């Protein structure tokens, strides 16, 4: 009796059911003779009585997912919806009786248009730098290098965060820095580049470089080296192999990598603050901090946030379509 109960319970867990059926059919007919009828009865009871509903696989699955969904709704979805609501209210009016207005958005697309352009420009240029410099890197990494794990380990340094990156680079850009002598030898006045667009772009490109290499590398790993060999034997020049073979076959990885870098770079915050001039410091994230937490103009900060969020989600959505859901189901 106990065994039977146990079997009934096992057979009720969704994904398992059909596989269990297959298993049983391969391992012996004896159990199959009486089990299916019992399962059918159990299922009918389960569907009819609400008390039994909880023991259906679907309900159990939802129950296991419940904490995750609860956290996502409480700390991600509700705050984002509330952010949208606040972005539509007149300055500070949402404390008492909210007046709804589109002023914040008019403001964002009017006075802050240059901030939007600056953000997109910096993110775009940094991502193009990543693409141009990252493609050869990914190719060499996949095709030529045996110490790949070591390179991967070194690539985790930028991923610890743009803060340490910008902080460390600050010292590199000083004339007294660790490479000061090298720059003097090369005749470069490195201090000139501190608090400049070049410094910001460089630090942004280094921070997102691993994402680009990861995406292009994944695409290139799926390209058979024999195709290159074949092209070469048939007389193709190296640049022809690139434009006719490698580039079309790794196109998905290129787009996914570019958009991923672009998405990360859109939210850039600390690099302009530590390494940039006031022009670079007008990026949306920094403006949001300034308006929201320094000047307490929550409506405007929320509108900037909604804009940045929409841009980031759009970029991510396209990127995931190209990488065929590296992260998903």
């Amino acid at each position: 009796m106990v065994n039977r109960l146990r079997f009934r319970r096992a057979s009720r867990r969704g994904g398992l059911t059909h596989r269990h059926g297959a298993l049983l059919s391969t391992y012996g007919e004896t159990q199959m003779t009486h089990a299916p009828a019992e399962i059918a009865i159990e299922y009918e009871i389960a569907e009819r009585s609400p008390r039994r509903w909880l023991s259906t696989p679907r309900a159990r699955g939802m129950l296991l997912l419940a904490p995750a969904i609860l956290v996502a709704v409480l700390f991600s979805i509700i705050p984002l919806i509330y952010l949208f609501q606040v972005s539509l209210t007149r300055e500070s009016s949402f404390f008492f009786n909210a007046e709804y207005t589109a002023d914040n958005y008019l403001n964002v697309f009017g006075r802050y248009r240059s901030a939007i352009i600056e953000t997109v420009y910096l993110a775009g240029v940094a991502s193009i730098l990543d693409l141009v410099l990252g493609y050869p890197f990914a190719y060499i990494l996949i095709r030529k290098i045996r110490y790949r794990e070591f390179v991967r380990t070194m690539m985790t340094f930028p991923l610890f965060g743009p803060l340490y990156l910008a902080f460390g680079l600050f010292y590199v850009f000083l004339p007294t820095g660790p490479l000061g002598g090298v720059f003097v030898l090369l005749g470069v006045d490195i201090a000139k580049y501190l608090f400049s667009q070049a410094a910001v772009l460089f630090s942004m490109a280094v921070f997102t470089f691993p994402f680009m290499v990861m995406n292009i590398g994944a695409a290139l790993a799926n390209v058979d080296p024999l195709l290159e060999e074949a092209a070469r034997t048939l007389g193709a020049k190296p640049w022809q192999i690139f434009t006719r073979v490698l580039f079309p076959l790794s196109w998905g990885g290129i787009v996914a990598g570019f958009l991923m870098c672009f998405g990360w770079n859109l939210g850039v915050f600390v690099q302009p603050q530590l390494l940039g001039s006031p022009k670079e410091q007008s990026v949306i994230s920094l403006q949001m901090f300034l308006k929201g937490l320094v000047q307490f103009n929550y409506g405007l900060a929320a509108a900037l946030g909604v804009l940045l969020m929409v841009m980031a989600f759009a970029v991510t959505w396209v990127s995931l379509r190209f990488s065929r859901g590296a992260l998903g189901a």
Partner: protein
Amino acid sequence: MASMTVDVSPHAGRGSGPRWFWNALAHGYVWAWMAIFALPFLATLIYSLRTPDGVWTFSYYQYVFGSFRENLLLSFETTLITIVINLLIAIPAAYAIVRYPIPGKSFILSTLNLSLYTPAAVMGVSLVIAYAFLFRIPQTMIGLIGAYVVGTFPLMLVPIIVALRDLPMVFEEAARTLGATRMQTFWRVELPLLGPGISAGILLTFVIIFNEFLVTLFIAGPGLTTAALRVYNLARTAGFQPSTAALATTMQLVSFTVVLLFFHFFGSRYLKGTYLI
């Protein structure tokens, strides 16, 4: 038909120049980039070990265990709590997603991953407004942990899903056929086999939360300054100080040690498709 001629010399393949030259160039390029990756860390390290007069010293590291001690302890504390909560949330969720028939699975998964694609500053500003005027928990530990959990449990979820999908049903079925209960199967069979996937999740959560400063900057009050936020605050207000460099070096060394340990024991297989490579 000049383009049809086939070059069969040993140096064929690269348009011009001998092969060793191109190989050296390729390896040199990768090593140059590795130098760039390590450069900010090395610069910070060097700066933390020298006084302004150019004398080499360890004396700045006394601050790490002195005035920065509380920040470091808070960092470890919040990271640890976040990892535990992430595990409690992500393991059942991954199990449900892989093994149970759930309606709208891909929609649920994208909803859970939503916070992963939200720029940190947007998350910060949305949470600071929601905490202050909706939930009424401004500048609290609960709020901070909530933000950390929602930001990183998708990263815990993905490696566990990958590991669970790779796990053949055979082990589970064998245990069940031999009479193990559902819970016994999970604790004795599946959990040990999921070890690498779960460790990957722990690694990702650790690396990100331990070094997180931006969301913290928005939502943490004056009493909740984590070590990474302290680095940011000092860099912004006090400029470039050797003591700050010492703290930044310590943080990076801790993170890098954890990454090295993970790569040594598990390799990078379970990190595919996630934040780290």
